């Protein structure tokens, strides 16, 4: 007789990421045995399942026990590694299964060993190593004292950033600015607790929302329509595509625009940015992140409100800002957050045969953390199918289509080019519209987006997907996929690497859910995790190196991130001669990218959609051009500032007196060292290492000495060149012609932030001691460095 025992197993809440932040790399945890029954007390069942039993389950069970497999009608339905959270799902299923017993033995062991009927036959021999492993799993699943995966132990030997360094990195990446002195002071006193508080504050700044929109545009690609959105908007019940052509000209003066062309341009931006602004709005207002799918509104500006005919229904705070976004509702329209975003489904359009499958795939990817096409990496032979309806009936096809087609059907009201219809129809030969085990009624097609949005928002994988998306945005890396090549000699190490990350992300997702979907909490947890903070490790073996392969970011800043960092550190931006940014879009016209933006690996959301994340020779040249031009601009400009406003070259106190670094030369004209000046120069170098690169050194540090030598050698060469008389004959000159004047572009003639000219005394045009150019060399060096270009 088969009986069900009382299950005592449950997954413990995983809340250890914060502990990692506090502890750094610490401790050894409990070790796993090989299926034995001792040491169960402190061991994570999930860890045991992942590291020992998953391999068996994947190889021997999942072939039949999947939603489309031969065992699809049983209660033992497993998920493959392509699906987000597959380990948690599978262990839950198995935990439930082991409760069913016959003669005191779980069916989970009896069936695959053929002790009772199993349609899949005998897969595991009693007494084999695999059997012992499964026995070990059963024992652990029945043990009440199981604990959560030991995340901290996974990162033993990894050196983490200090609270101060964590704050600097986070501030630059999230808020496009360096921390203030007061913020540093708070962290010095309060440690990571204060880092968390300051992160909360940073995430109220508009720069954070700009970053958030960049992250989601990298996913959605909706900036494609920054130019031309209104041209794509079809006539319809809620669409007035070319309203601006007949608009009252008073609108131009109201919004400070010059022409009808400006109205069109700003309307395009308003339409294209709608889904990104909705996401930013949800986070800014502190609402549950699930609202990005369930919002019963859309976002419009005063201009795009006219595109949808709701201009009289929306109230804006400003009467003159054409790009202020506010909530708007269309009448009798099933708003479903971004799932009813017109521009999103215009970019991701469909065809009569694609039938929303691409859109469904993207929903899986964006909101369910699953790249459904990964399930198609097993070989299929389409030509071997003679079935009339293979996507429904051929197992090769069903493996994807059973997942994709139902969600596609819930978008039936979204037509091919993103338009919405109140009278949708769907294809009866396809898997019916639905989600999971639920089917959407045929009368529900009109509101299918609302129906599916509510279900996705409640799905456990939605939280994981949000963690994945934030991780992508912060690190530029993809979340790891469980390896499946068991022949690979590094399989164990690769799986460990995956598992470390999966456990960390799962823990963050759980906290995200507990917080009622506070996205800022996800950002904070990621910032405090080893994936953001790891900076080095003790000596590691090859296998450990593979296991730690994704730890630590080594993230080449994107062009826009670098653009902001330059401004944050130097107080001035890298601009082209016409005043437009070199690495970011023109803020006055977002469709005009900086001249080096694509060279430096950026995207244009049109035909360049993937970022380059590793530098090549051309990108190195971009970095060098930036470094030399910004040094030229920033060094004289800083020296020209009032003493108390300098960022790079503050006065230094030497022998009880304050000295201007501009007056410090390391040697006399006769070559005798000036000790006091040398000390002052080194103090400035220490300051620059900290300010520009985030490095805290003492004056004795070898890196300070290296930088000092660069300064001194440049200064000596420069002074020799200044004194050098060029030969009149064909003799090769020893020095290039060198003037006491700074290059024209480098002269500080006006305040860089206000463009107001300095009076003559305040200008810096000459460098007769070659001190300015020596500091330019130092700054060029630092701006070209790994620690400036990467985070």
């Amino acid at each position, binding site marked *: 007789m088969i009986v069900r025992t009382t299950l005592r197993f449950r997954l413990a809440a995983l809340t250890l990421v914060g502990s990692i932040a506090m502890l750094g790399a610490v401790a050894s945890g409990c070790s796993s045995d090989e299926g034995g029954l001792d040491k169960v007390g402190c061991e994570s069942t999930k860890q045991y399942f992942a590291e020992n039993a998953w391999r068996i389950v994947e190889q021997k069970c999942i072939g039949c026990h999947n939603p489309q497999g031969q065992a699809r009608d049983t209660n033992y339905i497993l998920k493959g590694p392509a699906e987000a959270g597959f380990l948690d799902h599978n262990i839950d299923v198995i935990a439930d299964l082991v409760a069913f017993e016959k003669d005191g033995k779980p069916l989970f062991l009896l069936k695959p060993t053929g002790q009772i009927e199993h349609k899949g036959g005998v897969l595991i021999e009693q007494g084999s190593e695999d059997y012992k492993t499964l026995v070990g799993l059963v024992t652990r699943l029945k043990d009440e004292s199981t604990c959560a995966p030991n995340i901290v132990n996974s990162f033993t030997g990894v050196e983490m950033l200090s609270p101060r360094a964590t704050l600097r990195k986070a501030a630059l990446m999230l808020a496009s600015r360096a921390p203030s002195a007061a913020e540093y002071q708070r962290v010095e006193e309060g440690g990571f607790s204060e880092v968390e508080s300051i992160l909360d504050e940073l995430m109220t700044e508009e720069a954070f929302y700009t970053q958030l929109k960049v992250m989601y545009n990298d996913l959605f690609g909706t900036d494609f329509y920054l130019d031309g959105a209104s041209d794509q908007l079809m006539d319809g019940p809620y669409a007035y595509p070319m309203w601006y052509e007949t608009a009252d000209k008073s609108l131009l003066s109201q919004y400070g625009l010059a022409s009808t062309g400006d109205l069109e341009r700003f309307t395009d931006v308003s339409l294209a940015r709608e889904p990104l602004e909705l996401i930013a709005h949800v986070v800014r207002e502190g609402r549950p992140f699930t609202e990005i799918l369930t919002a019963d509104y859309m976002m419009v500006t005063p201009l795009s409100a006219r595109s949808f005919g709701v201009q009289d229904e929306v109230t804006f705070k400003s009467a003159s800002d054409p790009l202020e976004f506010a909530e708007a509702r269309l009448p009798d329209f099933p708003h479903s957050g971004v799932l009813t975003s017109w521009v999103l489904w215009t970019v991701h359009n469909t065809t009569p045969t694609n039938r929303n499958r691409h859109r469904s795939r993207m929903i899986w990817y964006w909101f369910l953390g699953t790249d459904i096409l990964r399930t198609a990496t097993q070989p*299929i032979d389409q030509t071997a199918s003679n079935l009339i309806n293979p996507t429904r009936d051929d197992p090769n096809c069903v493996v994807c289509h059973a997942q994709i087609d139902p969600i596609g059907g819930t978008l039936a009201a979204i037509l091919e080019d993103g338009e919405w219809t109140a009278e949708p129809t769907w294809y009866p030969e396809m898997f019916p519209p639905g989600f999971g085990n639920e089917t959407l009624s045929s009368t529900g097609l009109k509101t299918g987006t609302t129906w599916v949005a509510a279900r996705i928002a409640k799905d456990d994988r939605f939280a994981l997907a949000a963690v994945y998306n934030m991780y992508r945005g912060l690190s530029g890396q993809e979340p790891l996929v469980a390896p499946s090549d068991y022949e690979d000699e590094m399989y164990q190490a690769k799986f460990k690497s995956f598992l470390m990350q999966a456990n960390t992300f799962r823990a963050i997702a759980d906290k995200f859910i507990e917080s009622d979907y506070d996205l800022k909490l996800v950002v904070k947890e990621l910032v405090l995790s080893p994936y953001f903070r790891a900076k080095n*490790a003790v000596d590691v073996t090859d296998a450990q190196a593979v296991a730690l392969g994704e730890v630590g970011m080594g993230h080449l800043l994107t062009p826009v991130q670098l653009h902001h960092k330059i401004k944050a550190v130097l107080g001035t931006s890298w601009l082209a001669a016409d005043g437009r940014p070199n690495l970011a879009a023109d803020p006055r016209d977002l469709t005009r990218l900086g001249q*080096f933006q694509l060279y430096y690996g950026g995207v244009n959301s049109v035909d360049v959609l*993937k970022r380059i994340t590793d530098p090549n020779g051309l990108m190195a040249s971009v970095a060098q*051009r930036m470094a030399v031009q910004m040094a030229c601009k920033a060094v004289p400009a800083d020296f020209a500032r009032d003493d108390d406003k300098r960022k790079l070259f503050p006065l230094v106190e030497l022998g009880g007196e304050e000295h201007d670094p501009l007056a410090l030369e390391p040697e006399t004209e006769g070559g005798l060292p000036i000790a006091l000046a040398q000390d002052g120069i080194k103090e400035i170098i220490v300051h620059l290492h900290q300010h520009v690169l985030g490095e805290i050194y003492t004056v004795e540090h070898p890196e300070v000495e290296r930088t000092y030598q660069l300064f001194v*050698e440049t200064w000596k*060469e420069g002074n020799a060149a200044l004194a050098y008389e060029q030969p009149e004959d064909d003799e090769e000159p020893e020095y290039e012609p060198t003037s006491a004047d700074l290059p024209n572009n480098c002269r500080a003639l006006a305040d860089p932030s206000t463009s107001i000219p300095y009076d003559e005394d305040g200008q810096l045009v000459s460098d007769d001691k070659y001190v300015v150019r020596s500091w330019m060399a130092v700054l060029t060096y630092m701006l070209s460095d790994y620690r400036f270009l990467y985070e």
Partner: protein
Amino acid sequence: MERRDFIKMCSVAGLGVVSSGVPMSKLANAGDKDLFWVFVSAGGGWEHTHLCDPKGDTINSEDYAVNLDFAEGDIGVAGNIEYAPVVPFSKEFFDTYHPMTTVIRGIDCETNGHDTGQRNTFSGRLTENTPCFGALYAGAVAGKLPMTFITNGGYSYTGGVVAPTRIGNTAALQALIYPNRVTPNNEDSEKYLSDKSMIRIREALTARTEVMRDDQKLPRINNAMDLLYTSRLGMGEIAGLDEYLKYLEPLGNGMERQAKIILASFKAGLSQSATMSRGGFDTHGNSDQGTTNALDSLLRGVDALWKAAAHKDIDLADRLMVVIGSDFGRTPTYNAAMGKDHWSVGQMLLQTNPSNGIKGNRTIGGTTDTLKYRKVNPNTLELSDSGVAIRNSMIHKWFRKFAKIEDDKNVKLYPIATENEIDLS
């Protein structure tokens, strides 16, 4: 200072010395006989019966015609290669290039998903995160070149083996070639810093990076430092790109421009492999017209590549290996929108001078009248019902052998397991 040291120092400093005749990268990366590989991607899954597996409008064994826009009798022939007559340029293309072309028909692509299909076609593996052949090859043969792998789209995943390079607005190129010039286009321009200062900065950076790299034990960060270090090594040689681009002006647009930049970069010793791409092949609607337009553009792009390679100042036609492929093929039947959907059978074209060891003017493999793949004898490559299906894995296994990179440490990280092997030489 010895000239050799000077060149090295200038290179480290990012100062162009290409006029010295031998690019620094060539000194560091021998291999004057290594081929330059270009992978041309027809993005979206091409309608392969509109290229080299034409069927025509004859009713087949299942009572339909695979093609409605041309008759079987109009199928073009160039040597031993058949081609569909729908793209006017195809006659000129195959008449010109058939002696150096191998067509592989009836490839069992093993997938009909775009991402997996592209990956399989251009890496030989269905598995996620497999670098494309172009990246593996560049890494194995010329990993230190500053722009060793150029991407113009298509499957270009590199897995960190090499850094991909994308070349944008060529008008801005001068500023990158001469980053220290105030006015990049003016060779007499004022400089921001002296050349000696720039060299000094570069030496300090190199020394600092080496210290940091030696101390860094986390592989991701160590690898990032390594890539930055490598990227700087050949900065000064970028001038060569500009030098050879001048011979190929006007650069044109689209694939023609891609082709010319690639060839100039090969010639300058900056790059070893590249991708070109043309989208528009995912023709779920109005397939015949859509495919015709896209194929015309694709063939003209490949033609531009060969013409640029043959330019007298480039002269690399004998060292070029071109692989033209797509995600997969398209269904034998039309759908209601006169489109064609995904089909897990495809084709690939290889083009190179036969003196490189690959015979031209031949067609390998085939499909039935309903576009099912036919098997081949793996030894003779003749059609054989008792043979094996040609798969991308087999093609790439052979690519790796042919290119002599199968023992490279990075290549070995991505093994290709095939029961059968073929020899395409």
